[in-house]
């Protein structure tokens, strides 16, 4: 099975769930899980095949790729506009495809306890996943846009129906931000299409005939910013924290884990690939906004009172690294950016799962002041958070380190000040992670300073909470294992990324 079957399998799963009676909740869960696993396995199989192929190519051609794309399907869809149904994958898409697969499977496992409107939940969830798979494979601008929009609408319902804390506001804000972003992209796509003579929407065809520089300079920011809204670029990031906080666990995992990557992927695939001169013209602006986002996100995370807001702002900060890496335009920085997309996807999913599923679903509060001492009650959550947090800080041995180190090194080549400023966020990250860890998982049994007297003996023992369930453990272990595997053995992912980034920078695509 080719990797495009991930899209079809997921759609099939969603359709199948729609046909089931709404009361057979367990059947629905299992079908969702099987769909997710099947798609993930298809993705993984093709991932390793592609990896082997890249390594063979590299060995055969002095460490250089000549064409990184694996063509999947290319048929005419709407001849009136020369739209093709063109799917292809390369070393940039593959890590994101398997990221989507892992987040899907673990998201379903973490949503096992949803009891309200199970059928609709998993139908929306799988539609969203299928749209995301589609975006990562589309090589036709029109098709990419279709899949991209397809992924927006289910988010609204997933958040507004199953979310918490100002869920309707958060959902609406998120969807309107995404839609305004995609409106910019829409204008950009039309401009590209007609400037290039109205012949094709195919990205790989358009690359061969670059547009006139003056067109590039005004169209590039439209498409880049349009996508960057979803990547959480400062100052268009404000949907992200509210959206993440409002969303139910699986949706926050998807949002931070995958949907934000849709944005940065779109920036790379549609904007950077098609407009080399536009990119050259605007890259300093992107880098500066990215650095502001990195530092701002981390600083704001430090003062949050709500556990989930901390992770929400940390996502803004980490996605800033992705944009910074992309703007460096050197192999080091850009490969780091792609790896960071994968790495942050896993880390954010893990942290949101701890906050939303393991802690909030049990304690029904996320206020740091009201939590405490959970390490004794649910130690598994504590360990998970520490590991996720360490990866988030950029601790060596985890994937986050490899990615962020490369991005900083790449940024240093661009301008040392950029790396220095972005590096400021690292101590901030350490601070907010440790602070959260301290307040949520430790601290309870120490007599608290101000209201020490009110805390008598019984408060040192946290009331018992439901234990961590098996699906949660399995999902958390999968995610943690990924962080460590990629952290210790980065070349299973970095080789293909580097080869493709090099190809991109050589102008080969």
């Amino acid at each position, binding site marked *: 099975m080719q990797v495009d079957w991930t899209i079809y399998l997921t759609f099939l799963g969603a359709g199948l769930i729609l046909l089931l009676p709404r009361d057979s909740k367990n059947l629905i869960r299992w079908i969702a899980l099987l769909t997710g696993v099947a798609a993930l396995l298809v993705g993984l199989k093709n991932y390793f095949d592609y990896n082997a192929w890249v390594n063979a190519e590299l060995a055969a051609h002095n460490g250089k790729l000549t064409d990184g794309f694996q063509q999947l399907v290319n048929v005419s*869809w*709407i*001849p*009136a*506009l020369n739209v093709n149904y063109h799917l292809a994958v390369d070393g940039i898409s593959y890590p994101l495809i398997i990221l989507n697969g892992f987040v899907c499977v673990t998201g379903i496992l973490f949503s096992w306890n949803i009891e309200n409107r199970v059928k*609709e939940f998993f139908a929306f969830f799988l539609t969203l996943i299928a749209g995301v798979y589609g975006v990562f494979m589309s090589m036709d601008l*029109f098709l990419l*846009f*279709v899949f991209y*929009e*397809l992924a*927006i*609408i289910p988010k*609204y*319902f997933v958040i*507004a*129906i199953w979310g918490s804390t100002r869920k*309707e506001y958060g959902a*609406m804000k998120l*969807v*309107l931000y995404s*839609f*305004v972003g995609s*409106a910019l992209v*829409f*204008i950009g796509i*039309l*401009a590209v*299409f*007609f*400037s290039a003579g*109205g012949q094709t929407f195919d990205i790989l065809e358009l690359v061969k005939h670059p547009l006139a520089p003056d067109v590039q300079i005004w169209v590039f920011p439209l498409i880049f910013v349009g996508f960057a809204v979803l990547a959480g670029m400062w100052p268009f990031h404000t949907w992200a924290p509210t959206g993440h906080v409002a969303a139910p666990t699986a949706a926050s995992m998807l949002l931070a884990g995958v949907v934000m990557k849709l944005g940065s992927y779109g920036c790379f695939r549609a904007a950077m690939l098609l407009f080399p001169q536009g990119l050259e013209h605007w890259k300093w602006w992107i880098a500066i906004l990215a650095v502001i986002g990195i530092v701002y996100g981390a600083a704001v995370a430090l003062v949050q009172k709500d556990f989930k807001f901390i992770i929400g702002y940390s996502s803004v900060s980490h996605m800033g690294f992705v944009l910074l890496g992309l703007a460096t335009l050197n192999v080091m920085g850009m490969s780091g950016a792609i790896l960071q997309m994968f790495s942050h996807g896993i880390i954010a999913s893990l942290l949101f799962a701890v906050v939303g599923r393991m802690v909030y679903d049990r304690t029904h509060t996320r206020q740091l002041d009201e939590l405490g001492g959970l390490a004794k009650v649910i130690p598994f959550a504590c360990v998970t958070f520490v590991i996720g947090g360490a990866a988030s800080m950029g601790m060596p041995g985890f994937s986050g380190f490899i990615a962020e180190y490369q991005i900083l090194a790449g940024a240093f080549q661009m301008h040392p000040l950029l790396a220095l400023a972005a590096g400021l966020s690292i101590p901030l990250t350490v601070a907010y992670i440790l602070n959260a860890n301290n307040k949520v998982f430790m601290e309870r049994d120490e007599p608290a300073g101000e209201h020490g007297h009110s805390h008598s003996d019984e408060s040192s023992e946290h009331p018992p909470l439901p234990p961590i369930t098996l699906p949660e453990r399995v999902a958390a272990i999968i995610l943690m294992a990924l962080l460590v595997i990629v952290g210790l053995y980065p070349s299973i992912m970095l080789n293909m990324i580097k080869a493709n980034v090099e190809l991109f920078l050589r102008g080969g695509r």
Partner: protein
Amino acid sequence: MTPISYFEIFRALSSEAMLVVTALAALTLDLASLRRAEPITRRRTIGTVAVIGLLASVIPLWQQLGHPRTVFLGGTLAVDDLILVFKVVIVALTLLTVLISMDYDVGRHVGEYFAVMLFGAIGMMLLISAEELLMIFVALELTSISLYILTAFHKGELRSQEAAVKYFMFGAISSAFLLFGLSYIFGVTGTTSLYGIREVVKSSGMGMSPLLATGMLFALVGFGFKVAVVPFHLWAPDAYEGAPTPVTAYIATGSKVASFFVLLKVLFIGFAGLEGLAFWGHFSSGWTMLLAIMAALSMVLGNCAAIVQRNVKRMLAYSSIAHAGYIFIGLIAASRMGATSVLFYIIVYSLTNLGAFGVVAALSSRTGGDDLKDFDGMAKRAPFLSSLMLIFVLSLAGIPPLGGFFGKFYLFASAIQRDSQNFGLLWLVVLGILMSAVSLYYYLVLLKHIYVVDSKNQSRIITPTYLNVALGLVALAVVLLGVYPKPILELLNSLVAAL
């Protein structure tokens, strides 16, 4: 002048003739044998008669398909494939409206209701074949008067009466404008045939003379009313809200399709050569400039006013004003691609809107209200119709892969293609796209009431199967038009080439 062959006319208009017979049969049947029956029996019986008549009227249309274009009555009426396709569209929309009406309380005058609806359909079909100013006017009046009457059919309700009076007053005045404008055009060119006008304008080289400009302006005011664009839209929200919901559906779809079709013909054939320019910074007088102003105002005002509505029908009324603005963008493109995009969009739009109003009719007649709050928790009470509503509303919002998205994309693409070097019409497209983003807000608010908000009343709503099937097929069509627009697009494109 060649002698008129009545047989020819009858053959060309046999489907209209069938509808006349059906309408009379409906009236007689109701009067003769059903006066004492239950309203629901009467609606179902007479509705079935109307359905049979409508289905039968497709047969002659089908047989005429593929023949070369014929013109009769001295160029007054024409029959070609494009016209036939749109007559079929009108018949299909009427059929669906009849099906929706069978399930909706339209009062005691059931026979009259269906008969007037069929008369309206005849008006629309004549409007589509008309290629001469007077015939256009007469057909437009037949359509409008039928709709005025239908609007007032909620006899006990004040808002229905008010809506009908308002609709009628505005309509009558706009008809006067239209007729006045057409008389000027006749006065300047000496002909009432659309092709004749084109020839005279082209050969005399008069260009945009003041008299012709006045005539055009007045005619556009008249048409602007019929398709409800700002600033001639004021009747629409009240008429939509007050009319019985199936009638609202009919006003929003059937009459829109016919009016846009004839407007397209008047502009692209009659006023060919008088386009002027609507490019940003290069305006020059002509109909594209006038249309551009109306389009911009409609998109902005329609979408912004829809946000604050609390009644679903009123909200959809403002949304349809906005959609008229989008469709104008395709007209402004004044190109073959523009014509195709307009025709494609009115098909998608009318199906989508009919479906949406159909769901509103089916649900509101059972919950007793059509405000947003009456739709709370509908996803649990009527899951199937709610999922159809999801499709219709998202298509109106322009979300892929539904028909509304592709239609809108094609409209905007045609506007950009008009001046693909300097992007002269980009300003309208940008406005349209940004306003679509605004529109997503109120569409989502409607879906929020259906899917997110819970209601105290959890009782299931049961709707008749034929209605579910009919609306389901409409939804399927909306999806297919977006996923696989190729066949219908190619058909329209080849037919427009002959225009």
